[in-house]
């Protein structure tokens, strides 16, 4: 989805995100900045319509408005010349991996991208990723495209085969990032992961997004969203992500039942 937001487009950097509120009754949710065009004043957001807010977003038609978009928030990702880097995206996170792959390549890195999804029909951003990668690998859980298995399996194969990788960036489902971090810890490759906890204000005021990193509590919105994958307490993050699971399901169900709009 392209959104007109000239101030955000002007300041955006790879790794940052925006907070979106669709309508008056809406939640505030974070979405990674996938692309931006400073000249046209447009930002690109990608989401999967799984919850109420993303579903409402998916029902927006061209030319309609989103009530609030604020950003760019969080810190830009590490944009150094590492040498050979692996950029890993899973599920809707492939879109979030794209700006980082693009940026790391611009910095002169050799970019190996590994993208994956549950099944081939859910794989997104393949062409975009190919356009900013020196090598591209694909995996699907069910084997309908690329290697059968997980992105972390592809990474393991590469490392096992003796490929020298100097830096890994991973974004996607928390369990995927945990698996990637586990592999790279074994091979001692510096790894950043982009976390996706529950957020409310996104500017450091509420602490809903707090995570433990290296034994210290950090706010993902202002201290992250990228952290050293070897230091992140993924178990705690997974637990906290489930806080409102029942409420989220209930809100979506009510919305579907009433056929959209107000209650």
């Amino acid at each position, binding site marked *: 989805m392209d959104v007109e937001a000239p101030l955000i487009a002007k300041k955006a950097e790879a790794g940052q995100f925006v907070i979106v509120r669709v309508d008056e009754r809406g939640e505030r949710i974070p979405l990674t900045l996938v692309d931006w065009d400073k000249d046209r004043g447009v930002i690109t957001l990608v989401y999967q319509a799984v919850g109420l807010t993303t579903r409402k977003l998916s029902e927006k038609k061209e030319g309609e408005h989103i009530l*609030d978009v604020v950003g760019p928030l969080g810190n830009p990702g590490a944009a150094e010349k590492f040498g050979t880097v692996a950029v890993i995206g899973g599920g809707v996170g492939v879109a979030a991996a794209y700006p980082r792959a693009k940026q790391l390549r611009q910095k002169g890195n050799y970019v190996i991208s590994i993208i994956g999804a549950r099944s081939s029909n859910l794989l997104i951003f393949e062409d975009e990723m190919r356009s900013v990668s020196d090598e591209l690998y694909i995996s699907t859980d069910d084997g309908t495209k690329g290697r059968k298995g997980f992105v972390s399996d592809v990474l393991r194969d590469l490392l096992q085969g003796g490929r020298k990788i100097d830096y890994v960036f991973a974004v996607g489902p928390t369990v995927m990032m945990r698996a990637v971090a586990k592999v790279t810890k074994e091979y001692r490759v510096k790894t950043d992961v982009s976390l996706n906890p529950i957020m409310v204000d996104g500017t450091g005021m509420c602490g809903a997004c707090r995570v433990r990193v290296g034994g210290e509590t950090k706010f993902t919105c202002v201290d992250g969203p990228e952290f050293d994958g070897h230091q992140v307490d993924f178990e705690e993050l997974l637990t906290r992500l489930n*806080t409102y699971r029942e409420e989220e399901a209930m809100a979506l169900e009510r919305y579907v039942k009433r056929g959209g709009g107000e209650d």
Partner: protein
Amino acid sequence: MSGKPKLKRVPMRELEVSKRIRSFDEVALGYNEEEAIAEAERCLQCKNPKCVEGCPVGINIPKFIRHIRNREYEEAIKTIKLANNLPAICGRVCPQENQCEGRCVLGIKGDPINIGGLERFVADLELSRGFEVPEKAPDTGRSVAIIGSGTAGLTAAGDLAKMGHNVVVFEALHEPGGVLTYGIPEFRLPKRIVKAEVGYIEKLGVKIETDVVVGKTLTIEDLFQEGFDSVFVGTGAGLPAFLNVPGENLCGIYSANEFLIRVNLMKAYKFPYESDTPIKVGSENVVIGGGNVAMDSARCALRLSQKNVTVLYRRTEKEMPARRDEVRRAREEGVNFRFLTQPVGFLGDDRGQVRKVECIRMRLGEPDRSGRPRPIPIEGSNFYVDADAVVVAIGQRPNPMIPKTTPKIKVDERRGTIIVNPETLETSFKGVFAGGDIVTGAATVISAMGAGKKAARSIHKSLVK
């Protein structure tokens, strides 16, 4: 008035407890005309009024009270608004007992005048009739950017607009008002009041831009480049403090900021009917802290859960910083208090959900830097309090967004506050002024207002010289 002054204040009507705890409706109902006049008539009209000395913005209190007595309500509101742009808010949430009312001579033998109640009466009357926009100075051609639309920012904006400057306020959240909007609950400060008083500031010609995080969307340097002549930073104390004890990241543990933002700004108390933002309370709700934010959190938790709410505070009731009236109301509504109790950790179940607070008993020792007796843990006195929702309301620190993104602004590293020239409120970045909680650390609405007014005066001076 004749004879001896009446020592008892005219009581303010309150919503009955059974109705309070089932809604977020305002609790204090305000004075009607008859009550306001009766209360105004108690005023001694001191020649040398102590109350004015106690008011951080110097409202001519005896004068506006005299106008109420004479039923000259328009004159009364004009008198207040010379010094205070947000009287319906201040009448409700100022800690008058420590300020104007605390100095009232009648308080020596009886009840001080209910100055806040009278201020609220005339302010509400004006709200119901519609504002009269005061005369503004001619356009100076100068523009000022205000960062943060809380009390300090709105006050500075209103005064600067009256002085003839073009003023734009930048707000990070989607609604203006700062703490007035996201922090103080509906039952203590209805949001229609905040909206109306923000509307008054806009009528003065102030533009409010929401969804702009200065430091991220725009920097202070960008603002100067865009042509602003001066900048005021009023970004408040938005960084929540945590206890830093084991288990604090369990599910069900909220900072007071998160809890109140969900309830007040996101309207989680209307979930799932009119709001998409959920909140979770339980049958045993615990609030940690003894200030107004703790009382607000406890009373929200009570309304949301209709179950047990317990406030844990490490000193005794006497040392609680919360307003007495709010403590009384919380108690009337059924909030429990456990004093001399300090949490030292949280225990959860196998799903990562908080279940118990581990506490230690405290005793009071010698006074500390704050002048209150220092709480000292009693070794070996640990015990457990059941909890399935916890709100940590032990204070807020200055919002680090501007200090972190503006290296030219000098900051007190330990307190996180912006350092200013105490005379002018100018920071180390020329042309950038700051005031309110971002300079003092978390304080009151009225002290932020005092700072906003002071900054407006010195910004004005720097622009027209």
